[in-house]
């Protein structure tokens, strides 16, 4: 199981979702991905994308105008 980080700061939705989707394709089941964003829209969109595709959102947090989402690949 690996832990990876994806920097999608400055990108506006749906680009953070697209980059997350593309990154997840390269990961294995159980891997954990931390996505670092600046568009607040990701707080809705990435969890929605995870729900649709069955991935687990482990954590979402907002800190200093940045938004971090931690997900686990199914």
């Amino acid at each position: 199981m690996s832990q990876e980080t994806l920097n999608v700061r400055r990108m506006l939705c749906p680009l953070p979702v697209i980059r997350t989707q593309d990154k997840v394709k390269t990961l294995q089941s159980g891997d954990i991905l931390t996505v670092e964003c600046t568009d607040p829209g990701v707080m809705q969109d990435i969890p929605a994308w995870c729900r649709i595709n069955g991935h687990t959102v482990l954590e979402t947090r907002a800190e200093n105008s940045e938004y971090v989402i931690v997900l686990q690949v199914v």
Partner: protein
Amino acid sequence: MLATKAVMEQGIHVEGINFFTGFCVEGHTHAIRKRDSDKPKRNNSLWVAEQLGIKLHIIDIIEEYKQVLLNPKHGYGANMNPCLDCKIFMVNKAKQWMLENGFDFIITGEVIGQRPMSQRKQTMPIVAAESGADDLLVRPLCAKNLPATLPEREGWIDRNQLFDITGRSRKPQFALAKQFGFTDFAQPAGGCCFLTDESYSLKLVDLWKARGKRDYELDDVMLLKVGRHIRPKPHFKMIIAREDGESQFMSGYKKEYISMNCHSHRGPLVLIDGTADDDDLHLAAQILARYGQGREAEQVEVTLRDQQGNERNIVVKPLLENEIPKEWFV
């Protein structure tokens, strides 16, 4: 959403494809502007997919889309919207995806007469033929007004359970939504692409004219969505943030553009697009001062910043409102 539901009702497995051209509205301005912070930021395609319980594949076509926008075979709509070419391109991409992923046919939510350029009786066969989808392209909402497609002829899908909607009125769609139990819908087509927006299109054309070539990068597309654009001279343009959210978003571009902001008074961030010499930057600083709290001051101090982060301050007199010609506003 309705077309998908209509097909799913027949027990057919459907997955969604959403293409991102860079010009999709999808709440970008809401995401950037603080004053819109209370507006919903949901991505409609994701929301629709979740409501329907289907998988959604969002595909980045930013680079490939350039050829559609720059050289549309069927021309533009009222603004810089190449709707018919866009539809042909996307259906072609959907066909490629269909073949690569083992699906049998494509459905779209098109309705004859719904849109003046791309959804007319005459354009329906053009989209099917030029995309290469041919009779694997099913339009469930208006299928009964069109020749039967292969999936209908072969019985993969029951034509009798499809619809015969036509025209611009959305009343039949609302009725169908009610029948399906939908109480909320995504934004209708046309309002979801910046290229249908006159102001945005004018800025895009101005950008091409100033650069002497019809081309763009994603950053250009994004920055045309924000700020007040003023072109005092053909070789440079100012992008002036209109509020704090835009300033914050634009500050992410300080390494790509010369930037400036008022040092002595509160005011917006400005990015300079083009090649500006010292006289140009002095003029830009005077214009910038007009949009800050120092607009009535005798003089203000402005910080100029190059792409490497080197800063210097200059003192300028703010321009009066009538000293900024209307023609400068893009």
